[in-house]
């Protein structure tokens, strides 16, 4: 050890004589979980609303597809066995699911950006719990999902779509679509935490989009003629999410469809958030 200079000696002496820890700063109480979630969620919401392109594209693209497909596939209602509603009514469920995908990508990309930029490390140096970070980050995603769902519903109503389950059904529809979006946001967060880059998150987006197509998004499952496609759609959980939302629009109160829709949405939330939580623990390595 190099002999200490005078200044160093003074510093050591001061520390020893004060019998105080050499490292301690302010004595601060650790913030509660709610405070932590609130702080992170506030940031997430602010970030989301300041990046208007991230809000506008996920609103416009699904509505564009809704407008096009709602009209282009109008003839489908003449298929024997098709429900006695316009195709537009049938198709309104899809934007809610597509919107949830965009929420997933946005949530994941945001988190990945924090990891890539090192902001994640900054948060790791505070008393912030991993669960609070995850919950807070998804807060912004949930808010976007609320806005999106309201817009999709509004546009649907404005274009003449009737909600068979009435006003209460519309509220249940909003709740289901937000739950679905939350589950997908968890998936986005999982991808971000697992791979750590925005490119990886966005690379999964086409795959997620594929799952919407390989479902009962365009036709009822019983009217899908191609056997392998029907099989895939039957096993695809996205089919039940769409059918749950759709049932509120075109059927009214279909207990089975709602149970399956909410059930799969809850399973999605539980699975994605559990895995995301584990991935958070793995990434938020602190001793």
């Amino acid at each position: 050890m190099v002999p200490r200079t005078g200044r160093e000696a003074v510093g050591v002496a001061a520390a020893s004589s004060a019998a105080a820890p050499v490292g301690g700063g302010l004595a601060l109480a650790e913030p509660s979980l709610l405070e932590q979630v609130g702080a992170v969620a506030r940031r997430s919401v602010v970030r989301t609303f300041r990046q208007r392109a991230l809000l506008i594209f996920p609103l416009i693209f699904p509505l564009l597809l809704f407008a096009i497909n709602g009209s282009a596939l109008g003839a489908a209602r003449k298929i024997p066995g098709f429900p006695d509603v316009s195709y537009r009514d049938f198709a309104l469920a899809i934007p809610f699911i597509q919107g949830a995908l965009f929420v997933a990508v946005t949530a994941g990309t945001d988190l990945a950006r924090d990891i890539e930029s090192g902001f994640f490390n900054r948060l790791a140096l505070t008393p912030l719990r991993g669960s609070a970070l995850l919950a807070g980050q998804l807060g912004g995603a949930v808010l976007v999902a609320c806005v999106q769902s309201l817009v999709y519903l509004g546009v649907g109503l404005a274009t003449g779509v009737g909600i068979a389950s009435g006003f209460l059904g519309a509220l249940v529809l909003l709740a289901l679509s937000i739950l679905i979006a939350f589950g997908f946001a968890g998936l986005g967060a999982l991808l971000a935490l697992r791979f750590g880059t925005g490119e990886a998150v966005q690379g999964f987006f086409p795959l997620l989009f594929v799952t919407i197509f390989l479902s009962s998004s365009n036709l009822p499952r019983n009217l899908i003629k191609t056997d392998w496609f029907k099989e895939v759609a039957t096993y695809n959980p996205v089919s039940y999410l769409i059918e749950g939302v759709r049932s509120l629009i075109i059927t009214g109160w279909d207990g089975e469809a709602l149970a399956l829709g909410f059930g799969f949405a809850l399973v999605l939330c539980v699975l994605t958030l559990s895995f995301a939580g584990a991935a958070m623990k793995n990434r938020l390595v602190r001793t």
Partner: protein
Amino acid sequence: MRRFLFVARGVAWRSVHNTFANPAIILPSIIFPLFFLAAFAGGLSSISGVPNFDYKPGYTAFQYAFVLLQSSAFGGVFTGFAVARDFDSGFARRLMLSAPQRSGIIAGYAGGALVRWLVTGAVVTVAALVAGMSVEGGGVELIGLLGLGVLVNIAAALWACGVAMFLRTEQAGALIQMPVFIVLFLAPVFVPLHLLTGWIHAVARVNPATAALEAARGFIAGSPVKVALAFAVLAGAIALMAAFSRRGLASAERAG
């Protein structure tokens, strides 16, 4: 002319090489058309049960025509992404400095796009045939079909190059892609034109993509329709997009 071809060949070679050397680029451009074929032809095959759906070769062939032209169009669009990336990375500046005849650069990008699409188109065609697609057109019709695909690809590539050269950033991706997407999907994608109703019927009637799509379907069915119109529209589109991309190049040259 020699210098033009020399530059075009060099740029096209690079474009093709980069695509095929990088699975992350070539695979999506092959997989996505296959996926659309599966999703539309497989998932919507019941549409053939709609009264007055009278396309004789069947719904798989009906969708194959759309997917073929869609893959052609998006093959051109992806070229625009590559051009934009070249500007972002600074490589485009190197190209412009070294090319004795700069319009050859555009031709090179378009040429690369075409080569890529020929591979994609071949894969999609084989997949449709394996899925049981019925082809009732003869050799001449099938050459006509190929010709349509080639022209769509060139028009889309020129459009994409133009936008990329005007904006010179990867952020231009959405602006390159969306108009092509909208034009394609405002055509009779899922059902024939006479089965469309409402506003989309009105739009599809005047949409240039409709002529190309119907001509393609006619070739497959062995009953060519709107052939002259389709080729005229595409030739016009190419002329327009060539001028547009040339102006984009001039804009890039001015920016330095």
